């Protein structure tokens, strides 16, 4: 299906957030928000994705 990741349209096979995390090969320490709501890791498996879902995914970076 088609989803938006950090504003960019991408195709994915995953039907929930846990599957998307693994499909994209993301590092473990990331945070994911769906429709601007932070989804705790414990709820990744039970949070379904749907066509046109908007996700924000962040990771650690260097900073002061």
């Amino acid at each position, binding site marked *: 299906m088609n989803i938006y*990741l*950090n504003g960019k349209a*991408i195709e994915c096979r995953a039907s929930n957030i846990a599957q998307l995390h693994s499909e*994209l090969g*993301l*590092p473990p*320490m*990331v*945070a*994911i*928000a769906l429709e*601007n709501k*932070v*989804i*705790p*890791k414990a709820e990744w498996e039970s949070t379904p994705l749907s066509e046109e879902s908007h996700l*924000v*995914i*962040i*990771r*650690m*970076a*260097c*900073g*002061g």
Partner: protein
Amino acid sequence: MYNMKPLIIAGREFNSRLFLGTGKFSSNALMQESIVASGCEMVTVAMKRIELDDKEDDMLNHIISPNIQLLPNTSGVRDAREAVFAAQMAREAFGTNWLKLEIHPDPRYLLPDSVETLKATEQLVKLGFVVLPYCQADPTLCKRLEEAGAATVMPLGAPIGSNQGLRTRDFLSIIIEQSNVPVVVDAGIGAPSHAAEAMEMGADACLVNTAIAVASNPVEMAIAFKEAVIAGRRAFEAGLGEQSIDFTAQASSPLTSFLG
């Protein structure tokens, strides 16, 4: 042997009063070496949106250690609403509820927005975060942040990355005198002497990034800052002598009758 008083923030004890930022180092390896050399026990980290073709070295491997408290920052947010979202993302990503709250919408001076910082502190404390707000060197604001439940206050010495030193010196003194939470001087510290001065004034800690990261030899500079912070704190705890109100000398040797 004389031991300096440990610093306690939100129940966690820190033996080092120097905190490091992780920005601007030329490599992650150099950053790691500088962190180790500095002896610091708290480092700030930022967040960024992932890019799928991003193949850069994962900086986490260079800083994760049981001795080091991670302090995610909210750099990039423009108001309290965005700060709360960023804080919740940071808590999920890094597994810590500690947060360097920074809200500086103005890109030229990166000066913190006091109204939004206070508003965000009130909300984040209620959500269970340990909030260390980067703030203006404003004594009234610092009291308000303390009342809102901030774990420290982190007033600036000068704008971020400016290396200008303690331009807010007199206001920092008032903040230190009045504060019931630790005062961490953040931003603008450009030389070990600036850090030593802040510590001599009674600041509880200093947060340094640019001055170490952009030095010709960051590892040596990290050691210089470590020593300066220790020297300044020791001097504060030892009790500095009073300054004369003018340049009149105060003899330190007996002046009478030496040559008859």
